[in-house]
């Protein structure tokens, strides 16, 4: 019996432990499904694979090679550690061997992944006697190397931000690449969702436009973690027909997946024991038995705290780290490389990490993985859990929930997780603000014909608007860029508008920009005294200069977060789709006017209100999309106005959180507004709006899958152990009223009737 099996047995017999386990799923071992090398694969490439001990391909790898051979765009959707990189490296290397002039562009969402890719490619090429020139090209690339990369790189590995601001606006310097571009590889496709995805879809429109100028129509190979709509997302991003490859051919050993819910310590408030303390216990059991483990936490602070706990727990001599390491952003690249190597060789026994290690950085496979708190999406939970799992022998993943509503939903509804994933990655490339900004960039890159399409978006009116704005100049049926500006520099792919408030850390003598928030969100997130979270670190806002769009923050370590009290006025401007039955539901364009008047300080975990303060900032205005559901009097079966009001307040607390679960969003990405007598519908109405200017597609999606979402919301409320409402479900009674929970459930019944 292995050490892990012994521990699992011990846990099973421990009633105290099992009382907290809400699901112990055993995923059985699965045999691999294989294919011989496709004949199209160059003989030298086959030999190189053989030398690396690969004498056949997984079925999905072979399918990807064959589909690209047929000239199709491909989306490969398989889990972590299923040999995904070969799905694109093989076609690309094959093309370069056939014609050394061939070029490929690889897009990864982060820089760290790029480095690993290049190393792997070069290793492959070494075995084939192919003079492969693969380079990363990003902000860190030395200026002296850039010209050579532009001229002679076979494979250029970069990220969407660099493509957007550094490559496309200078495409004339990349003639060789664009004239010979055969493949564009987009890995971690599911990351391109929401605002980021809406931007990236437009960057791809620009990329295709530039390729066309040089006479190429490259093929796309996309890879994604498992989501509900990979094909739809791929088609949204590249606007081409896509062949989906979803059958995973990689073998898998038996895996135990445990959902662990810490015991309740305060029944009334629904407060549970800290997940960090529970993780300490679980991880100590593992590490103490010498089982190589990875522990994920959500913050940098969590990494340091757990590291101390674990080292102390093992009662090691001072200075002896007993092979336990931390890993997070902020560590030097050299330190990180050493830890990665230590994990591969086994000298590092355990690593405590933020999600920095979630993505494809090569650390080999661990035996066990402990996840502190739900990582936010099913996809990244599987990616983290996928870090444990060797070719042979059992592996273990434990997810320890915290008190937050999403965690509680997940841990008490494991089927949501273990069933077919309901998560949709959504992007809205035609968000008018994002689209218009990319039309500016595209016009900078190449003049626009009057009737030239931009992907599937009609842009004639946008071009004429920009002409009137004196940004473009029309001549002979073409719109030319005619302004002293470099538009890509002003547009961040991470936020919807250009009008951002920059967040400046003044903790050190040298002030440093650490992030930005959009103008609309600024009064809520960075009002003076707000606690702003960035990379797991807390900062307090000292000064918000709204006119100059700058927020000055200082690092702090406090036990609360802040929540701004927002007075929101919502006005429907346009209805895009409507359905009237017993209830009325619709989605459309809305205008939100928001005024922040005060903020509250809320203690972590207990969610106690421990203070407040005023905010004096101007009202902000945003145009976005909203979904709404309205209740005609007949549907309400005689509920009093007061009851309806309490029910709506409960729905407003509950639904955004649950809905964001289906959209892979942050709970803050969707906001709710309820109106007891909405001017537009004249009825009690619940609005859910995309909390991004222009909208990113959430409202439309909710309109389509509203039943699924409200059913999930009902499950949360029903399964919650509180009696009259708590922060984990419909909100505490002092907010939604004594019978708020009952009234919320009644409204849910009405919707789902």
């Amino acid at each position, binding site marked *: 019996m292995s050490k892990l099996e012994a521990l699992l047995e011990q846990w099973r017999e421990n009633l105290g432990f099992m009382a907290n386990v809400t699901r112990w799923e055993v995923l059985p071992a699965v045999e691999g499904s294989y294919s011989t090398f496709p004949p199209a694969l160059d003989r030298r490439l086959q030999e190189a694979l053989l030398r690396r001990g690969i004498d056949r391909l997984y079925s999905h790898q072979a399918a990807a090679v064959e589909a690209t051979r047929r000239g199709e765009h491909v989306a490969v959707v398989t889990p972590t550690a299923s040999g995904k990189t070969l799905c694109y490296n093989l076609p690309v290397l094959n093309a370069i061997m056939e014609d050394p002039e061939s070029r490929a562009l690889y897009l990864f969402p982060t820089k760290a992944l790029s480095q690993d890719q290049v190393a792997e490619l070069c290793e492959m090429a070494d075995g084939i006697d192919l003079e492969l020139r693969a380079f990363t090209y990003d902000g860190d690339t030395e200026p002296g190397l850039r010209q050579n990369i532009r001229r002679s790189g076979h494979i250029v590995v970069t990220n969407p931000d660099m493509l957007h601001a550094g490559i496309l606006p*200078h495409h004339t310097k990349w003639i060789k690449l664009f004239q010979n571009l055969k493949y564009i590889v987009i890995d971690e496709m599911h990351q391109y969702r929401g605002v980021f995805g809406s931007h990236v879809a437009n960057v791809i429109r620009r990329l295709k436009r530039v390729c066309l100028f040089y006479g190429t129509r490259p093929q796309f190979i996309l890879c994604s973690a498992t989501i509900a709509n990979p094909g739809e997302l791929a088609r949204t991003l590249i606007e081409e027909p896509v062949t989906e490859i979803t059958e995973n051919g990689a073998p898998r050993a038996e895996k135990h997946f445990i959902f662990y819910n810490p015991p309740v310590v305060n029944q009334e408030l629904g407060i549970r024991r800290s997940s960090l303390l529970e993780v300490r216990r679980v991880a100590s059991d593992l590490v103490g038995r010498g089982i190589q483990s990875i522990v994920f936490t959500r913050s940098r602070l969590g990494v340091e705290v757990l590291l101390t706990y674990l080292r102390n727990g093992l009662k090691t001599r001072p200075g002896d780290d007993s092979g336990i390491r931390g890993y997070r952003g902020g560590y030097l690249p050299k330190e990180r490389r050493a830890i990665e190597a230590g994990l591969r060789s086994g000298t590092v026994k355990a690593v405590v990490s933020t999600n920095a290690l979630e993505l494809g950085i090569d650390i080999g496979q661990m035996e066990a993985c402990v996840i502190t708190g739900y990582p936010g999406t099913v996809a990244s939970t599987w990616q983290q859990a996928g870090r444990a799992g060797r070719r042979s022998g059992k592996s273990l993943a434990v997810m320890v929930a915290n008190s937050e509503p999403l965690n509680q939903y997940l841990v008490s509804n494991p089927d949501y997780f273990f069933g077919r994933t309901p998560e949709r990655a959504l992007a809205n490339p035609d968000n008018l603000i994002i689209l218009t900004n990319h039309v500016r960039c595209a016009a900078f890159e190449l003049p626009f014909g009057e009737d030239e399409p931009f992907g599937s978006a009609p842009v004639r009116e946008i071009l004429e608007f920009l002409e*009137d704005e004196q940004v473009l100049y029309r001549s002979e049926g073409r719109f030319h860029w005619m302004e*002293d500006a470099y538009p890509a520099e002003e547009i961040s792919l991470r936020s919807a508008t250009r009008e951002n408030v920059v967040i400046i850390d003044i903790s050190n003598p040298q002030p440093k920009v650490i992030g930005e928030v959009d103008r609309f969100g600024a009064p809520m997130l960075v009002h003076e005294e707000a606690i702003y979270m960035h990379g797991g670190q807390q900062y307090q806002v000292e000064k918000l200069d709204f006119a100059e769009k700058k927020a000055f923050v200082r690092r702090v370590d406090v036990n609360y977060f802040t929540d701004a009290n927002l007075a929101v006025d919502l006005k429907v401007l346009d209805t895009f789709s409507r359905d009237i039955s017993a209830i009325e539901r619709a989605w459309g364009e809305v205008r939100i006017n928001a005024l922040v008047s005060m903020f509250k300080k809320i203690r972590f975990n207990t969610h106690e209100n421990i203070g407040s303060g005023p905010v004096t900032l101007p009202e902000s205005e945003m145009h976005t999309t909203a979904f709404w559901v309205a209740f005609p009097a007949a549907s309400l079966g005689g509920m009093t106005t007061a009851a309806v009001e309490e029910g709506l307040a409960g729905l407003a607390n509950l639904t955004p959180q649950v809905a964001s679960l289906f959209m892979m969003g942050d709970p803050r990405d969707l906001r709710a507004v309820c109106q007891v007598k909405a001017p537009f519908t004249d009825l009690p109405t619940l609005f859910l709006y995309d909390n991004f200017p222009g909208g990113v597609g959430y409202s439309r999606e909710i309109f389509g899958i509203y039943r699924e979402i409200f059913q999930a919301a009902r499950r949360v409320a029903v399964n919650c152990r509180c009696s009259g409402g708590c922060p984990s479900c419909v909100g505490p009674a002092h907010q939604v009223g004594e019978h708020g929970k009952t009234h919320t459930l009644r409204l849910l019944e009405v919707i789902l009737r």
Partner: protein
Amino acid sequence: MSGDIRSRLERLRRSGELQSAGTLEGKTGDRPPFFLFPGEERETETDAGRCYYRELCFPLAGKHGNAYLNGLINCRGADLALPGKNPALVEFSPGRSLFLDIETTGLSGGTGTWAFLIGMGWVENDIFRLRQYFLRHPREEKAMLLHFTRRAAQFSDLVTFNGRAFDLPLIVTRQVLAGLPHTSPRLHLDLLPCSRRLWKERLSSCSLRSLEEALLGLHRHGDIPGEEIPYVYFSYLRRGETALLRDVFQHNVLDILSMATLLTRVARAAAGEDLEHPADYYSLGKLCAEAGEMDKAVRCLQKTACNGDERLTHLALLQLSMILKKQKQWDEAAKLWRELVGCLPYDLTPYIELAKYYEHQAGEYEAALSLTRQAVERTRRRFSAPATGELSLPALQHRLARLRRKLGENI
């Protein structure tokens, strides 16, 4: 998505969600024919349509600032190879070169920046001819570039000021976009880095404007500031305003003429003529040393050491000592280093050079150890500027440890 896009855009502009460039002024209709420089301008036909240029002649015997244009003819490639840091420039012939300077719709570069005025100058018999292509309308760009490209191809060599980073790449970008051959001169002399190498010890700025005032005796009055130039062109294009355009043309003329006299000045300075200041000798000496022209380097540096202020004298002595080191004249070099230790407070080079001399040449480890220790001390107490390579703290400590080991072995 439904909804009238135009009115949605207007809404977003009003709410500030879409940043607005500002004014929404009426467009102008047809403009009258462009007519700005009677007698100087020409409209010419190309395979890609018509384009416009203006031509001016300046007698080579004439003056620009305090210098004669004909100085140009006597410049020797050999003198330019040194400040240009390119031995191939020996073949360079100013008399057969194209002087190029462009005015653009922005400084950020990239494919969206236009060259709306391409100024070029060259020597023709006893005149300096100056031609300015002007983009009267975007539709004429290809014709303008085609005419320019063909004319430019007749010159083997190119002279610019900051053209390596700006003018030439921008021209090439426009040529790529227009599907034309790229301008690729056999030799390219960029006067900006040359000037920096020669005068940065003396002048706080090496912008063309500063060089004109300090070296060429030219003071511009009423010159248009560079950052306004794009807007002059935009208001010409959108509203037909030509008043300020003349200033842009004139600005470009002066830039090109100044390049001609600056080239002369660079060549003379490199030849050791007209050197006005010990700093100039120092810069030249350093350049000569880098190029391996040791005798000339020593002469220049000695001049600086005799006439310069304290700082320059020390810098010159340091350069001299490194030349002596290269020539393995160890005792003379060591003498200079001993002199320098202590008088160049922010530079640890003499300490370490001397330490190396004691360690590897003289075999006096004690002395080497003591100097290295002093260097470490200075670094720790931040008496010296942060350094890299062998002057960095880890390197110094490494040296210290090695010397200690050697001493331990020998005792």
